[in-house]
């Protein structure tokens, strides 16, 4: 019974965090809410025995990306938006579309219930998600993409520096 309980705890936290981010007026608050979601997702990974990814999730998202966000918000000193956000017809359309996407996804999941694979044994899953296993894959079969993604990160870093420099725009 521990599995479902843990799942529900994390799931509720994740959805709450997401909704919080969506609703909060202040971007800093939004960011904090999102961090909650990130942690919850990391927890969910743990429930699936995907230990390595879980750690990386915390490190990268919560540790790096979200810090970056908050840093930028602070840097620009954007505590509050000058204008209040109110519903207009465009937002209505957006809302309807969102619901539509949700409905489609729900339909897909429900329709696919009987073809979904039955979950592998927990040990096997743990074996699969272990750092050793992933490292082996990553440095053998996916070595080339790994290098490429490294270059991508480098390029992104250089690009970000260039763009953010004064007198660029």
């Amino acid at each position, binding site marked *: 019974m521990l599995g479902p309980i843990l799942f529900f705890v994390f799931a509720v936290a994740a959805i709450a965090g997401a909704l919080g981010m969506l609703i909060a007026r202040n971007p800093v608050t939004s960011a904090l809410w999102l961090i909650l*979601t990130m942690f919850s997702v990391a927890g969910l990974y743990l429930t*699936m025995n*995907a230990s390595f990814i879980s750690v990386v999730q915390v490190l990268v998202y919560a540790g790096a990306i979200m810090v970056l966000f908050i840093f930028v918000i602070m840097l620009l000193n954007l505590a509050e938006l000058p204008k209040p956000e109110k519903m207009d017809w465009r937002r209505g359309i957006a809302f309807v579309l*969102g619901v539509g*996407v949700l409905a489609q996804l729900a339909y897909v999941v429900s329709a*696919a219930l009987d073809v*979904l694979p039955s979950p592998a044994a927990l040990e096997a899953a743990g074996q699969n998600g272990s750092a050793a296993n992933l490292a082996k894959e990553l440095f053998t079969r996916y070595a080339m993409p790994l290098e490429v993604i490294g270059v991508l*990160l480098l390029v992104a870093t250089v690009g970000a*520096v260039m763009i953010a420099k004064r007198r660029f725009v």
Partner: protein
Amino acid sequence: MEVTLNWYLTLAAVLFVIGVMGVLLRRNVIVILMSVELMLNAVNLTLVAFSQSMADPAGQILVFFVMSVAAAEAAVGLAIVIAIFRSRLTIDVTDINLFRY
């Protein structure tokens, strides 16, 4: 009661849609970027769920790459936000329409 794959999928769907809503509804560019991150997270969740239930590491490898791209995207996106804020003193998307006809 057992936690099956479709639970995770449903959760991921909900998170994804919240992300979509964020992109479509919010006017703050930074929050929009955060919503994009949320969408990526939702997808990651799906990938990991499938990967673990099928005992195939490829899904998690992909998640790894997605995270890298997300990091790159956040870095460049935020840099752009800074640049725009410098020149136009706003990060409200409804005020940024450089490509207007």
